């Protein structure tokens, strides 16, 4: 996917360059400005994730989610999922490992869903773009929705 994105960006850049040099230069300037704008927050987030994941080992997460069952496990999974920020390519093998270790589908669905949709660590960045009310509202709704998904998946699977 990343490769496709690069190809699309390069082709678009080429077409743009052919049509207008000035516009292309401006586009790159804007691209850099947008990136530079969000860079301090990204750097901070990267450090926070690094520290958090170095303290929280896979075994500890398994213990938190694996042993529990029912709503208590779902709540723990949702809170852990909301706070942590694990890239999907790490999260899914982890989730698969948790299921093998005995965690229920309900807890895992809650974990994955909140992990992807709710971001407590990135909330300050979201507030900078959308304002407090919208950011909190979106995350709050996403949290409630994740609980619903967990419940439904627990019932169906």
């Amino acid at each position: 996917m990343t490769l496709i994105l690069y190809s699309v960006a390069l082709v678009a850049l080429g077409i743009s360059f052919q049509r207008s040099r000035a516009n292309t230069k401006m586009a790159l300037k804007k691209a850099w400005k947008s990136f530079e704008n969000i860079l301090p927050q990204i750097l901070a987030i990267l450090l926070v994730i690094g520290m958090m994941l170095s303290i929280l080992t896979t075994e500890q997460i398994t213990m938190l989610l694996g042993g529990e069952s029912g709503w208590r496990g779902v709540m723990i999974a949702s809170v852990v999922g909301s706070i942590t920020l694990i890239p999907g390519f790490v999260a899914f093998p982890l989730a698969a490992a948790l299921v093998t270790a005995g965690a229920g589908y309900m807890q895992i669905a809650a974990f994955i869903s909140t992990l992807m949709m709710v971001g407590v660590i990135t909330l300050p960045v979201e507030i900078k773009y959308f304002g407090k009310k919208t950011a909190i509202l979106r995350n709050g709704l996403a949290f409630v929705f994740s609980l619903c998904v967990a419940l439904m998946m627990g019932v169906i699977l």
Partner: protein
Amino acid sequence: MIKKYSFFLLLALVQIVVLILRPELGKESLRITWENALDMLSVMPPIFILLGLLDVWVKKETMIKYMGEGSGIIGILLAFFIGSAAAGPLYGAFPVAAVLIKKGSKLSNVFIMLGAWSTTKIPLILFEATSMGFQFTALRFVLNLFGIGIIAYFTEKALSAADKQKIAELAEGRN
């Protein structure tokens, strides 16, 4: 400049202190940070280049026509496609959202893009299916389709005209 990076610098200081006091832990966290940084840096350039091109070439009227008020199902599908075709973490979507808003996209469509970016990204779905199985992935995907729409609808409904004005101003200042 320093003020902008003050939080990062503070965290970097904490990281250095940890590295001195607990070298094992400090090294491990640096390793994870470095890995994530490489991941992030590898997906960001094309996203921001496309963002810059979109900002320069797509006219406001065009964006309003396809994603603004009254854009209907086309706006929804377009928003969903932009989010799903993306790569990288959710915070990469915020600058994209800012440009869409600036160009006149309807807010609910921006929230649909955010929702799709967070949960229905195509590469992640393929990855989810291989590790969690088809049934789990398919069920979650279908539920997410509804969820993204519901969250987008209610978030926009809950915002007053003043809130929307503020979001527009924030987007303007961001790019």
